[in-house]
Each structure stands twice: as C-alpha cells, then as structure tokens.
C-alpha cells in the first residue's frame, strides 16, 4: 500500500476511536444526584431520532453544516428538559448526545468506506502504539467574554449583522447557521424557564427568561448562561474544557449584585457552590477546568472577591472536579499564593499552577499579542491557550516517544515489524544510538503530523461547528467556521509522552554497552526482543545502576534535553490542516499505560507491556532523589518551547503538608520551580503509608483524593493496578 493511503487509513481508524473516546463519557448519562427530567417537556428519543433522519435526508445534498445546524436547532426546540428544585441552576437535558453521536457515526461510516479499512480497528493495531492522530474536538475554551457580553440573542444578532456585509455564499451560509442555532438557544431558554417554573424554581426561571432576551446582568443570570452554553456546545459535539477566567468574567456581576442588595457574600457563595456542583454532577471523567489569578493588562496580579470565594469553596467542597487553574508569577504576592496552597495542605490537590513568566514567553514566541496573552487559560488538564481566541485542540496527535527505541535495534521497524522510520544499521555505541533514535523519531513524527493534517483538512466536512464557532468573535468577523481557521489563532497540539523512558534508555545504553561493557549492542537488541528472558540480573542493573531522568543527573537529563529540543523544534514548525501550526506538548496523561502496552522492552530495564514513564516524571520507582531533583531535571529544558503544554507532576510527602508551615512551604516549593523556568505544575500530597492503609481499609478513606495525571479521582475509584502504580511511585521517593 502506498504511504499516503496507509496514513489515510490510519487516520480514519484513529478518528473512529477518538470519537468513541470522546462520546463514551457522560453525554448519555444522567447527572450525579438525579436528573429531574420533565418527560412531558419534549419528544422521546425515538421521535427525535426520526426527526434527525428526516433532516439528514432533506439536506443530504447541501454542506454538512446545514444538517448539523438543523439537528441542533431541533434538539433545542424539542428535547425533554430537566430541572431540580434543590438546585439553583439547570444544566441537563435528555438525549444531549444525539447530534454529537451522529457526527461520530458519520466519522465511522467515512472511515469504513475507505478501501484500506482492513487496517482499521483499534488504534494500537493501526500504528502499533507509535502514535495516533484525530480530529480533536474534546479540548476547547469558548469565547466566554462574547457569550456573557451578548447572550444567545446578541450572538445571533452579531451574526445577522455581519451577514449584511458578507461577500460569498459560503460566508452567508456559515452566518445563517450561527444565527439559526443561537435563535434556537434563546427558545430553549424560554422552554427551560417553563420547566423550572413548574418545578418550583422561580428565580431560575426568571433568569432563563432574562438571558433568552438580553445579556445577563446578575451573577445568577451569568452563571446560568455559562451552564446553558456549556450544555449547548457539548450537545453539538465539542467538549468545553475551560470555563474561562472565572474571577475576571464574573466579578462585575458579583459587585453589582452586592451593591444593589440582590445578593450577599453568603448567597453568592451558595450560587457559585451550585455552579461548581452542576459541573461536578456532569460526571466528566477528566474534569472541567476553571481559571483564576494571573496578571491583567497592566501586569497586576488578579486577586478579587471571587478568587477568594472560589478557593474557599474548593477547600470546603473537597471534590475532585471542577479543577482549578491558578496562574501566578514573580509579581504575585505571597499571601495570595498561600491562600491557594492552603487548599493543597488540606489535601485538595485538584489545582494546577501556571507560570505567568514562562507561559507569557511561550505565547510571545508563538506570535500571540500582549493583549491576548493576559487572557490565557489552561484547557483540559494543562494545555495553554488564549480564552476566546482559539479552540486549542491540544490532542490532534499523540506520540509515543519510546517507540523508536525498538526501531533503532530493528532497522527502522518495531519488534513486531511495524515500520517506524528508515532502514538503518545497528549503531555501535551510545552516541550513534542516540543519533539513530532521533532519526527514527523524526520519521515517526512525520507520519503523525501528516495524518493529523489529513484529519484536519476534512474537519469542515466531518465536524463543522456553527454553535461553538458562533461564540468566537473572530469566526464571525472572518465569517468562517472554526474548523476552517475562523479563530484568531488556529494551532493544534501534538502531545509527546514517555520522555523519562527515553532518557533512561539512552543513559542505560551508555552505561551497559559503552561504559560497563556488560553487553554488546546486538546482544542488547536480542535481549529486549526476548523481553529480558533469562537476563533478570542484567535487567536489574539497568533499573538500579544506570542514571535516571528526574534525579538532576546530567547523564540522563542531557539526553532528555536533546530529544526535547529536537521534538519541539520539529513540531512547532509544522503547519497543521486548518490554517495554523502544530505545537509540541510534553505530557502523557494516562496514555502511559496504552502506550506501554504496545511497546517492547526498553534498555532502561522496563519490561514489555508495562507502562512507560508518565508525563515528565521519573520512571515509576526511579525518582530516588525526590521532588526537588525532579523539578531541577525539568527546568533544564527550555519550557517556553512546550507550546502545547508541559506539566511537572510531583508527589509531595504529606509531612510537608502537615508541617506547621504547610501552605507556605508548598508555596515556596512552587515558586522555586517557577523561578527556575517551570511552566506548570500540580501536586499530590500523601505518604505511602496512608495509601497502603487506604488499600487495606478503603472504608476509612471515602474522601481521599489523588491526582491522576491532570485530573483528580477518589482513591477508592482507582483499580488495584492503578493503586499499586501510585504506591510504587510514592515509595521510591520516600525510600531514603
């Protein structure tokens, strides 16, 4: 099969499963704590399905954006709505998965219509775990400023007005679609108000009627609009993964409410608590991110009544989700930072910290304006993007950095025979090995970016997004869908996982082959192919006696830096498929396991089918020098080049949190990392003994949270395998 065809097949296979991943979550599930569905308020699912079929048939000859618009409008007009008298807000309606699911089925049909479909199936077989590419519709940050300033009606009017000066049919079509979905959203608010009224929620009903007509004026209206928008966009099929810079977006509403006597601090706090609860109840497994702090346009750190209230609430609620981002930098006063780290000292670790200075530099290098940079948020877990100016799409491709190690030993193919890069001779020494590794990696990245580009070029046909795009002011100005480059910035991210495994492997080749001469390169290749069979002693030496990434040891850190520099330079220069460039991200989230499952044994002593290193951490069990050394290793990298994000993932001993200076100590620790050039960081705070006890007596630890890799979960919700993995990492750090 020709290369291009193969890539296309792989791309479609990947899109198919990415859709599955995206829609496998809560869209179909009722919110935690009960739905409160009003059965009589709309049509049953089967009737909606019929209506959707009719729409699809009627518009089959027109661009897909028309069908999508009509689906969404039909959903808003006819879906059954829910409201709970116990809640301050409404957020859920039935069958909200329908339009998104149909797009996913469309991707699937498209994929299966490809003649190369015999290659389709699980993504791991498509590329053997080397990489995968997809349309990333699950990492977005809406244009919250526009949404709150205009409301549904204003958003529709903005598009209507822009249509008057539109030049082409395509522009008019796009703007008509936006107008149609937002007019429908206004009608949805009116219908929803009636259900809320019926359920005995007069205040909620009133706010819904208000936002149907005009922009929100009160905190209650603004928060309700945020939730209605959130549900609307997710019903279209794109996940909302940042609720925006909360303390900046809502503080004026709050102040006006207090001044007018509409709310007190306590009643406003209750509203925000319910807003957080609605997001929590949505049950998104990877969580909803909300931004706080950071410098404003004058360079002054933002800290207002809402920042204070939100972290107070986060501490009181003790929930894994929503997860909060706190932006801070050199100018952030100590008291402000310590109010946030106090949450961590109390075990509320669902907070990620972002560095103003390094992210500012990163955005500048990517050509973003100073005015836009102050509006940045972290989307999803820790992917930086400008609120309202870009979708972010941080996972257009996922790259397993460990895979090319196999190809170096096997002339460009992995041990299963899957082609990774060009044919090559077996290198004789560690230096040549690293050179060849980088060549194989480069070839692998080429495949990944080409495929991601192919996916994005079909974006408008497969997944146009009139609702999401209609929120962005730039999409309206350009009269273009976000999938066609309508946003101001149109980057998409390629995340790379496993830097620890790679660095350790390069260091181990040097130690075992070059220095100690325990084995030749050819022998090492055969040993790895056989998964260390009968060579346990050598494997243990590789694990124990070779230098390891994350311990501030240049013997492992410098190879990591060379790999990092090469990957970042390569990816950051690649054009993507919708009018921007790709951006390199260094993190793995929980792909350390699926990547590891299809990666053969590696020279660092790792066995086949075991996890590769997670995020930018040391390999599990190898971070012997503890958290400070891990940060020192990471700070050797130029982290302003991680345009798609870089996270330091740290386990702090609980003794630090419990010590009398807990909050101050944690703040000092975070600040030290940021001073030396860290980009973002999140923490776990526990002792291995606590985890052991929690495994033995789960009933005693209902509230114990751990941070998995960008989101928090309750300890008891983890599988035993995951618990053991955590324990191994925690124990390595506290073994001295």
């Amino acid at each position, binding site marked *: 099969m020709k290369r291009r065809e193969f890539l296309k097949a792989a791309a479609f296979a990947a899109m198919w499963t990415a859709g599955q991943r995206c829609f496998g979550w809560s869209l179909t599930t009722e919110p935690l704590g009960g739905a409160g569905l009003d059965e009589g308020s709309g049509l049953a699912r089967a009737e909606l399905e019929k209506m959707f079929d009719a729409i699809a048939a009627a518009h089959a000859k027109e661009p897909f954006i028309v069908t999508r618009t009509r689906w969404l409008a039909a959903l808003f007009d006819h879906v059954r709505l829910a409201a709970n008298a116990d809640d301050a807000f409404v957020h859920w309606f039935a069958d909200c998965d329908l339009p998104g699911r149909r797009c996913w089925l469309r991707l699937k049909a498209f994929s299966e219509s490809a003649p190369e479909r015999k290659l389709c199936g699980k993504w791991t077989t498509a590329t053997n775990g080397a990489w995968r590419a997809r349309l990333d519709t699950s990492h977005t940050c809406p244009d919250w400023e526009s949404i709150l300033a205009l409301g549904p009606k204003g958003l529709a009017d903005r598009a209507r007005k822009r249509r008057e000066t539109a030049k082409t049919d395509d522009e008019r079509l796009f703007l008509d679609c936006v107008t149609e979905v937002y007019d429908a959203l206004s009608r949805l608010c009116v219908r929803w108000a009636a259900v809320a009224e019926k359920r005995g929620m007069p205040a909620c009903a009133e706010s819904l009627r208000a936002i149907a007509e005009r922009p929100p004026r009160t905190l209650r209206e603004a928060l309700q609009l945020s939730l209605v928008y959130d549900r609307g966009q997710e019903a279209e099929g794109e996940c909302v993964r940042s609720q925006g810079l909360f303390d900046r977006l809502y503080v004026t509403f709050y102040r006006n409410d207090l001044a007018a006597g509409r709310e007190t601090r306590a009643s406003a706090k209750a509203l925000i608590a319910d807003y957080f609860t609605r997001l929590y109840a949505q049950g998104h497994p990877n969580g909803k991110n909300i931004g706080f702090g950071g410098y404003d346009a004058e360079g002054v750190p933002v800290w207002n009544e809402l920042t204070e209230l939100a972290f107070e609430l986060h501490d009181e609620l003790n929930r894994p989700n929503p997860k909060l981002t706190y932006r801070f930098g050199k100018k952030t006063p100590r008291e402000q930072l310590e109010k946030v780290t106090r949450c961590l000292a109390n075990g509320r670790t669902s907070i990620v910290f972002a560095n103003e200075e390094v992210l500012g530099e990163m955005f500048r290098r990517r050509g973003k304006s100073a005015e836009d940079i102050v509006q940045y948020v972290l989307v999803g877990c820790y992917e930086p993007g400008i609120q309202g100016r870009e979708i972010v799409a941080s996972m257009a491709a996922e790259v397993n950095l460990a895979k090319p190690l196999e190809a170096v030993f096997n002339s460009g193919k992995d041990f299963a025979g899957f082609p990774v890069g060009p044919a090559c001779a077996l290198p004789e020494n560690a230096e040549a090995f690293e050179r060849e590794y980088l060549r194989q990696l480069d070839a692998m990245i080429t495949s990944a970016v080409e495929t991601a580009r192919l996916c994005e070029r079909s974006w408008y046909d497969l997944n146009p997004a009139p609702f999401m795009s209609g929120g962005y002011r730039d999409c309206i100005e350009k009269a273009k869908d976000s999938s066609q480059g309508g946003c101001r910035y149109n980057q998409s991210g390629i995340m790379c996982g496993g830097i620890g495994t790679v660095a350790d492997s390069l260091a181990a080749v040097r130690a075992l082959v070059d220095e100690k001469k325990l084995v030749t390169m050819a022998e090492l290749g055969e040993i790895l192919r056989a998964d260390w069979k009968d060579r346990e*002693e050598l494997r243990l030496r590789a694990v124990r006696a070779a230098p390891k990434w994350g311990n501030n040891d240049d013997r492992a850190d410098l190879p990591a830096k060379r790999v990092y520099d090469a990957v970042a330079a390569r990816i950051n220069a690649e054009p993507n498929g919708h009018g921007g460039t790709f951006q390199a991200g260094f993190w793995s989230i929980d792909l350390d396991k699926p990547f590891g499952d299809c990666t053969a044994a590696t020279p660092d002593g790792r066995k086949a089918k075991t996890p590769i290193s997670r995020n930018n951490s040391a390999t599990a069990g190898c971070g012997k020098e503890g958290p*400070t050394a891990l940060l020192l290793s990471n700070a050797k990298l130029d982290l302003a080049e991680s345009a798609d994000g870089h996270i330091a993932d740290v386990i702090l*001993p609980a003794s630090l949190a419990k010590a009398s*200076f807990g909050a101050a100590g944690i703040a000092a620790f975070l600040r030290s990392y940021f001073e030396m050039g860290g980009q973002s960081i999140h923490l776990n705070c526990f002792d291995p003994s606590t985890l052991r006890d929690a495994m033995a007596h789960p009933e005693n630890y209902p509230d114990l949270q751990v941070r998995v890799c960008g989101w928090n979960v309750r300890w008891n919700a983890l599988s035993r395998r995951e618990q053991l993995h955590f324990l191994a990492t925690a124990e390595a750090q506290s073994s001295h």
Partner: protein
Amino acid sequence: MKTPLMLDTTRMAVHDGPGLRTTFFVKGCPLKCRWCHNPESISSKPQWARFPDKCQHREICTMDEAACPTGALKLYGKPMSIPDIVAKAREDKAFYKQSGGGVTLSGGEPLFFWEWAEELFKAFKAEGLHTCIDTSLYAPPVAVERMLPLVDMWLPDFKAENADRHKTHTGVPNGLIKDNLKLLVKAGAKLEVRMLVVPGCTDGQDAADRHRYLRSIGIRDEDVAELEYMDLARSKYAALGMPDTMPPKPR
C-alpha cells in the same frame, strides 16, 4: 581528623530546621539510646542490612546493592567527600532561597566528628548556606565552641535530666550535655531543643524535670519542642542483626 561514613541524604526535609532543607546523616554515635530509631547510625563502620520481606529475587541475588531494585539489600555507610556533600547541598539552593531553608547535619552524632564537621560547615558557609546541626551535644565543649560561629541554628536533644537515668537509657552520663547547653545559652545561639517523650520511659516526671531544668538555665519554652515517639524502626534492627531495644509504644 576523624572522617565519618555517610548514610542517605534527605532532600526537602521539613523537620530539621526552618524551610526546606537537605539533611546529611553521619554514621557513628557515642550514645546508644534504647529507643534509637536509626540503629544503622550507631556504629561508625559500614553495615549490610537485609530486609527479607522486600526481597523478590532470591534465586538470582548477587549480593550487590547496585543490582537490588527493591531495597532488600542495603549497605549503610558510604564515603562522601566534603566537596561531594557541598555539591549535593548546592543542588537545592533555589528551594532554600524561597523557603528560608538550608542544610542540616544530623546522624549519628555529628560532633563525634567535630573537626571534620567544622571543615564541612566552613565549606557550607563559603556557599552562603543556612546551617543547622542536630546533635546530642555529647561532645567536648571545644567542639561546640569551634562550631558556634558556623552554625545558624542548633537542634540539640535533651534526653533525660537525671544523670543516672540518662546513663541507663543512653549509655552515657549527661554532664557534658548540660555544660554544652549552658554554653549555647551563654553564647546566645539560636536553638530549638528537642525532647523525645518515650511513654513509660521518659514521660511524666522525667519530661517535667527536663522542662524545669531547661527553664532554669534560661531556655525559653518556645525554643523547646516535644517529639512524639515512634517505634517504626524495628525492622531495621532485625535487618542489621541487632537486638531490638526499642520500648513498646502503647496503642
């Protein structure tokens, strides 16, 4: 000059003085406290320890610590030069700066090797590091006098007030210790006296006596910290082949 072997180093220590610190442990101590929670630090000679419950590779064990991934086999006591120690201490300087931390020398008994400790602390000071010393003060007064200008904060232990009881529990009398405490007070040294309270052993009247004595020589209550006794080191006694002398901890 007597040079100690070193035990492991703890980075980001939070209980060995102010801020975030790197703590270095010397091997070797003239005392033998019944409750010692670091029995590997008593002898100044290298010692092998085996933790059978951690061993997962019995069949292929080469008795080489470097090849033992589970820590079942451990060699306590390795040489580490003063430049190496200083280099290690320097690594976390950024963290000391933000937190008001620094380095702490602990043990074992650092003043057992006071001439060496003096050299080491001169090197710490040349690096501009904040220094603490965790000591039983069982050392000739000249050791304390020589260390005084180099130590920013003293963390002395005060194990028992009564000389006989001190000897019973630790193997040595406490005359020198009391003299050195007075010397520190006289010199106006910054200190935090640590009092371990071992239930049924050094609690009750014993603890009260110690508080009274410390007040009588001019040490303020806020400079005294009582430490809770933990009997978590029993597996180390077994691993080292040493008789376990730790008093039981009432549950």
